[in-house]
């Protein structure tokens, strides 16, 4: 049972989008912690 191209594309695209958003999220959290004085 071969995975269809569409489903394969959705899996890869979803993974790529999540990975692309991750650095932005980390920077936002960093700024929030820094403002609260909670970095470390």
């Amino acid at each position, binding site marked *: 049972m071969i995975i269809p191209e569409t489903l394969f594309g959705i899996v890869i695209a979803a993974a790529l989008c999540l990975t692309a958003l991750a650095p932005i999220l980390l920077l936002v959290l960093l700024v*929030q912690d820094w403002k609260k004085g909670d970095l470390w």
Partner: protein
Amino acid sequence: MDVVNSAILDPMTGWVILAAFSALWIALGWYWGRHSQALDDYVLAGRRVGLALGTATAMATWVTSNTTMAAPQIALQMGIWGMLGYSLGAVGLFLFAPLAARIRRLMPTGYTSGDFIRLRYGHFAWRVFLVISLFYSLGWLVSMGMAGGILIHALTGIPYHYGMTVILGICVGYTLLGGFRAVIGTDFIQALLILSGVVVIAFLAIQHIGFDDIHRSIATERPELLNLLMPASIMFLFNNLLFGVGEIFHSNVWWSRAFSFREGVGFKAYTLAGLLWAPIPIVAGFIALAVPALSLNVPAADMVGPMVAAEILGTAGAVLVLIMVFSALSSSIDSLLAATSILVVEDIYRRHLRPNATSAQMRTASARIIVGLGILTWLLCAPRITTLAELLYFTGAFVASTIWPIAAGLFWRRANTLGAIAGMLLGSAAGLYSYFAIGFYVAALVGAAVSMSCVLIACWLQPAAYDWADLQEHHPQESGGTP
């Protein structure tokens, strides 16, 4: 294929990049660690790490050389389920989130996972656990040291031993200078570099070859890689899940983070780290699936990742790969050096050799052990003996056998010493047997199943009535030692 001749970066470019990033990590390590004189500051960053740095360090540490090297290799061997199976390594981070919160609450002054096993199950179980944990830590360090040498060699032509020496030397250097604060601070930058690098490479791969061509080539030349019913791959999927859970549950790398986070941060940090980590092996594995479309001849399975990247991305892409890989390796090696050193200091040096050691003596011992671990790892990496995946999965049986003793011990008063000891010993033995009798992809599965049976049967036959207050241990250096 001669890798030196096929490397698309010349050695000089490679040395310049390695030197630049090495200087950066060392400088940051010195800067962040310049006030870390007290033991808790040096080994646990003062126990006040916030959500952003906590999430980044958990995520970056879990992105190891194996994510960048073995995930593409597994994708090429096991296809779509290999990629998804590798991605299930994130389940370990998710499941550890509630454990991290509980660890912080039950043991606010704890140092190591060994502390927990000793206080919860007694000295024999503790020593069994230490053997497993130290063996695993060393195996992980060696697999990454080797990966460093292999990757740098594949990308730049710099000889394996030089590359491996550089990556180990730099990590020892900045971990030594800055302690855990340096580890966590550099992990944040390394997390950004890794995530950005993976995304850029995958986008460039799709742009270079075309998504349709990649899928068509696999379907024509290696259709088994797209098979949703490939039995070995499905077995691998569950095995990898349990392997990841075992690695995270027992290893002091993750416990030391739980001890170092602010109150209330552990659960959120580990959950977010799991979410951010899960897609990375899929993206990295996808890059390897370009092999059929590129008609590449892959001489060694663990070379597939860097070979594909080098083939499709050219010089700029190769620079990016080198930076990303250097970051992935550093973020894991530094964490292991720091966490293993405090494990050795607390559980061997203080608990076995110097029970009255002061804070200052423990800090000095920790620094020396970081150097010692670096040297030992180098000696074990020097002869390149096995492929990365084999080395990695050899430890699967051991770590999976600790899942139930740890989880049950943290949440069930009834979990008892006999079940924990039997779980770790019999689980490891059964997992090892299945590793050699069946294959690497079932070792963790069998180890965890046998361990679970031992813990549950022992709980049922002879339930304990553990008092959680016994985990709140007084540390002599808290009152006596001066920094």
